[in-house]
């Protein structure tokens, strides 16, 4: 009797929890589903209603969007994507490579300022970049890189959080014996790092590369400040801002289509790598 009641309670509880979770999942997906549906509809079908079934107008909308944008001085959605890639790809490589190099330097060598350097990297991890934007613009102007992509790419070389994770990973899975063995074989210190250490820490580099890529791709504030009104150099989030500004004049289906294209690369990436991404997020919290 008791046992039956217990199992009833057990399954009731489970159903309740699943219901809440399914509701939350629905909430997570709904705006993106709406975005997808609306990007495939004619403008006249979007106004004022929510449709569940996708239309056939996606490519027509995309074509219309590109044609409309060709007439303006703005970038079109594909150019914005290309611009974002020009910034994001080198920034990601620099961030991951130099974070690994820095972490390796602190991890492997004994030098007088080792502890101080590490304490410093740890301390600056949480300093937000937004508050020093006035000075950041000044540096860009001083180095004649204002209105170029350089200030969006080069600073990625100093990413304290990435360094932190690289060092954590090295502590757990990079043994000194391997480094010693390479030295005995006569490999130079840089050679050891490039040819022996990097292949060994590849999993950590891959995870950190995903987050570096996403962070750079999604950044709106810094590119706005550096690129400003140079319309041909707009990155993807800046393009989204421009798309919103044209809201009154443009065809609704086309705007949704543009928005959908801006999230497509990240959606595809997430669909393929979600397991690693969720595992990477979990790693972020257990650092204390």
């Amino acid at each position: 009797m008791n046992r039956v009641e217990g199992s009833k309670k057990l399954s009731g509880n489970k159903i309740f929890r699943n219901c809440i979770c399914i509701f939350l999942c629905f909430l997570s997906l709904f705006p993106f589903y709406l975005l997808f549906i609306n990007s495939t509809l004619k403008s006249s079908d979007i106004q004022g209603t929510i449709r569940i079934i996708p239309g056939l107008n996606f490519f027509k909308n995309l074509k219309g969007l590109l044609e409309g944008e060709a007439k303006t001085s703005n970038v079109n959605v594909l150019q914005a994507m290309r611009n974002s890639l020009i910034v994001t790809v080198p920034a990601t490589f620099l961030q991951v490579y130099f974070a690994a190099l820095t972490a390796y330097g602190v991890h492997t060598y004994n030098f007088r300022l080792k502890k101080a350097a590490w304490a410093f990297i740890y301390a600056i991890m949480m300093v937000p970049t937004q508050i020093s934007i006035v000075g950041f613009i000044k540096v860009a102007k001083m180095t004649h890189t204002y209105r170029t992509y350089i200030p969006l790419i080069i600073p990625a070389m100093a990413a304290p959080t990435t360094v932190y994770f690289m060092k954590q990973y090295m502590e757990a899975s990079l043994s000194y014996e391997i480094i010693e063995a390479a030295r005995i074989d006569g490999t130079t210190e840089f050679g050891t790092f490039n040819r022996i250490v990097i292949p060994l820490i590849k999993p950590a580099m891959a995870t950190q590369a995903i987050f570096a890529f996403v962070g750079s791709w999604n950044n709106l504030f810094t590119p706005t400040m550096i690129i400003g009104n140079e319309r041909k150099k707009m990155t993807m989030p800046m393009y989204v801002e421009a798309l919103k500004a044209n809201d009154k004049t443009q065809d609704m289906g086309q705007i949704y289509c543009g928005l959908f294209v801006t999230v497509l690369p990240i959606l595809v990436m997430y669909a393929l790598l979600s397991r690693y991404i969720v595992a990477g997020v979990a790693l972020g919290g257990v650092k204390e």
Partner: protein
Amino acid sequence: MKHHKRKSTVDLSRYGYIFIAPFFIIFLVFQLYPLIYTFYKSFYYSTFTRFGSIEHFGLENYKKYILGEKTFWWAVAITVGLWLLNFVPQILLSLLLAAWFTDIKYKLKHDGKYKVIMYMPNIITAATIAVLYYKMFNNNGPMTELMRKAGWLQKDRYVLEKGWATFFIIAFIQFWMWYGNTMIVLCAGIMGISPSLYEASMVDGATSRQQFFKITVPLLKPILQFTLVTSAIGGLQMYDIPYLFNDGGPLIKMGKENVSSTQTVVMLIKKFIFADKPDHGRAAAYSVVLFFITLAVSMVFYIATSEKKEKKPKKKAAVEG
């Protein structure tokens, strides 16, 4: 042998400096110098004449724009309010979900899938999300239409012209984007707690609720502290969502003045850098005060949550004993 080994470490120590040098050089140029320059610039007060702007050195920016008017403090209040309104429900829901997903007694079959879907909004471009929500809630958006049909809104009225509603939706978007992240972090934290504690307490007849409040929450304190501090720092720099959702609007009446109902501090900073007559001194003064507010808030949270930590080992020992 011993001698040789010592020699080799001395020889190699310079590589330590060489390997970390690029990081520190780039940090100095692109992060530390900008911070110092921002402080320095905040003491330059600009006056605009027909022939351009003239700058004077002094405390005028602080006197006039920080102490002399309410704009900045109103933006601070809005930023803190938006953060609180998203963080409190966020941490509660995340804790609840994390407790569910790590519960051995009622194991949910699809917790992995739930995590993946709930985290998704966090990885999508915030700018796109803000514009998407704007589209849903603007004058002829689908949500507006639904609310009109339900009778919550009059015809030809819409949500984005109401200050409190815009404020609430921005807080909701932030909550919606971040609870998945926090939940995954807390799950990892709970998974790190020794299962023997739960087993021992189960033998003693503890209920799920007791386990949650007496074991999970106290032992999660370092991670909760981390979540609180990082979220507060990030929240104080909030920009993308409020900016692209409704550009700080709508204006609402406060006494005799019209004020922006959702303008955050970073939006204010951007506004004076992008103005027709850019005022970097004023933007810098706002930045400096925001810097100290961020520092103070993270210190206060850090200290306030650390004090209780001292009791923790005793509790842990008691549970284990």
